[in-house]
């Protein structure tokens, strides 16, 4: 297909995918102690995209680990502005996207927030409580400045909904791995591969599974169907328990595992 209209961010991900590489997207809560070093460590150890969480007081899609990380960051005084300032100092070679709840966007104003992200070097945004039907005004503002809006698709979506979600997705489609919130699980849910498979049938946008992919073995399993995986709670827990070096080691481990297949 003609990809010349795509955002450079999406073109890059598609090219990697088409070359046979599985995409690895570590998540780090912005403002959490050691977060900038954790991002550098992830970038140096094989991340294809890094997702930076902007902590929110009421994170309804997050389980205990990311809730705790968000609260710690907020208690330390993190704000969207302070985190974006930190992002500017990162100097990493990997595309950066943010994950934030919609009130952060709404409060700043769509246009203003979109341009703040772009100015900080962010290429995309994931807003988990902004579903397709409510996304119009934000998407217009993001499109206007060349920022990718990464849409989420959920296992509960009927078949006729998925193509509409994918049509609005830029960069990649975030395929929600299970019915539930972020956090580590002992096994990869069956819904993870099922939904990714359904999405692959209806879109050429890269399909990346997030929520409930908890270790390198689960990452390998998820990548049998999907184009890549997000690693959230497993990364954040290591950052809180052991620091940025542990994040680097973990990202390297997952990288090696999915490269080996």
């Amino acid at each position, binding site marked *: 297909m003609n990809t010349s209209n795509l955002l450079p961010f999406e073109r890059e991900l598609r090219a990697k995918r088409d070359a046979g590489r599985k995409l690895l997207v570590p998540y780090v809560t912005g403002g959490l102690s050691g977060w900038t070093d954790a991002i550098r460590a992830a970038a140096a150890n094989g991340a294809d995209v890094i997702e930076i969480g902007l902590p929110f*007081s009421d994170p309804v899609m997050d389980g205990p680990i990311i809730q705790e990380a968000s609260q710690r960051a907020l208690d330390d005084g993190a704000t969207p502005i302070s985190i974006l300032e930190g992002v500017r100092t990162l100097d990493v070679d990997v595309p950066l996207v943010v994950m934030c709840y919609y009130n952060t966007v*709404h*409060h700043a104003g769509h246009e203003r927030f979109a341009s703040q992200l772009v100015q900080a070097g962010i290429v995309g945004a994931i807003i988990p409580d902004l*579903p397709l039907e409510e996304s119009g005004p934000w998407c217009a503002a993001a499109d206007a400045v060349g920022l990718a809006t990464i849409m*989420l698709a*959920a296992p509960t979506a009927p078949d006729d909904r998925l193509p509409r979600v994918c049509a609005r997705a830029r960069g990649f489609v975030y395929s929600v791995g299970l019915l539930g919130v972020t956090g580590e699980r002992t096994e990869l849910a069956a819904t993870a591969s099922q939904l990714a498979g359904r999405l692959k049938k209806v879109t050429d946008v890269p399909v990346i599974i997030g929520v409930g992919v908890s270790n390198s073995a689960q990452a390998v399993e998820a990548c049998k169907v999907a184009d890549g995986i997000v690693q959230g709670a497993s990364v954040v827990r290591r950052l809180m328990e052991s620091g940025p070096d542990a994040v680097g080691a973990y990202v390297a481990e997952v990288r090696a595992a999915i490269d080996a297949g």
Partner: protein
Amino acid sequence: MSISDQSIMSEPSESGRFGEFGGRFVPETLVPACQELEASFREAWADPLFRAELDQVLKEYAGRPSIITECYQLGAKLGIRLVLKREDLNHTGSHKINNVLGQVLLAKRMGKKRIVAETGAGQHGVASATAAALMGMSCKVYMGAVDVERQALNVFRMKLLGAEVEAVHSGSRTLKDAVNEAMRDWVASVESTHYCLGSVMGPHPYPWMVREFHRVIGKEAREQCLERYGSDPDFVVACVGGGSNAIGIFSGFVDTKARLIGVEPAGGAAVGRGQPGVVHGMRSYLMQDEYGQVQEAHSISAGLDYPGVGPEHSYLASIGRAEYPTVTDAEVIEAFQLMAKTEGIIPALECAHALAWITREAPKMQGKTVLMNLSGRGDKDVGQMMEILG
């Protein structure tokens, strides 16, 4: 928009908006469930059989219609005619049962097996546990850890009714965090579970559906006032946390000349001090900081400790049809005792907010008829008041 506009307090727009408020800001996982709930409610509400079933259970189980009571002593003292709508006399002791019986009947009709609910003071939790027991469904109630402590009696009551109560330790550990945790549960259990939201808040269709289930309060009160006094009241007053009891009684009088007053706690004044924001699935007035972080509400009453407000209240405020003044905890403590001593009625601390406003503003309402929604009884608050009053 003019006040006489017929659309006020009718159906919200297709996207669930009341003016610019409302909507459906939920994780993608919950969108199909909200759509299914909307379709099911719409279908049931238009079905005479469902309406008859609900009317019957409201009558034979909840004890409707609730009476109105004129407060002769207190009215004489304040120089007004003070009339109470006695939602405190419903089974389980508050207006919450109206909504819960409606939602649990609907959930059963939808084939759900399990109910989750959030609660602040415990009134909605007790009502949910009650309806679940009545209709043979399992029930889990999320309650902020702070509220579990100050409303221990209601926690035990829910357990007696067979519900599981989980204390929520995240965030401010009050009502807003209980809503977060109930939503997280629902995200994981949506196929078998109905989220029985306790106020006129949350994503579409909840604000509309919950209002319809509480419309009975205003409908009865309007008829009762006409029958008793031959006219509509001059003021209709109710406390507002999320705002369900206020919406219920306002709905009966929105097309009259009555002034509609929703009283918020000074420490949880979403309309009075908030700005439009989005949390818990809705766009509405919200107490938040300069970056959009939701602020904690502080009030003496657990049921009003909520930094947001139902979107229809935001709309009624924005068009000037209803007013949302605040009262302080100290005024509430006074009003609580005043009603007990002069009328022999112990009100819930939530409703004491409405009375606190009435007693403060009575000099400006001399000779007027003031209808107050006594939305709950105060038994649950007696322990807390015992500590406060020593």
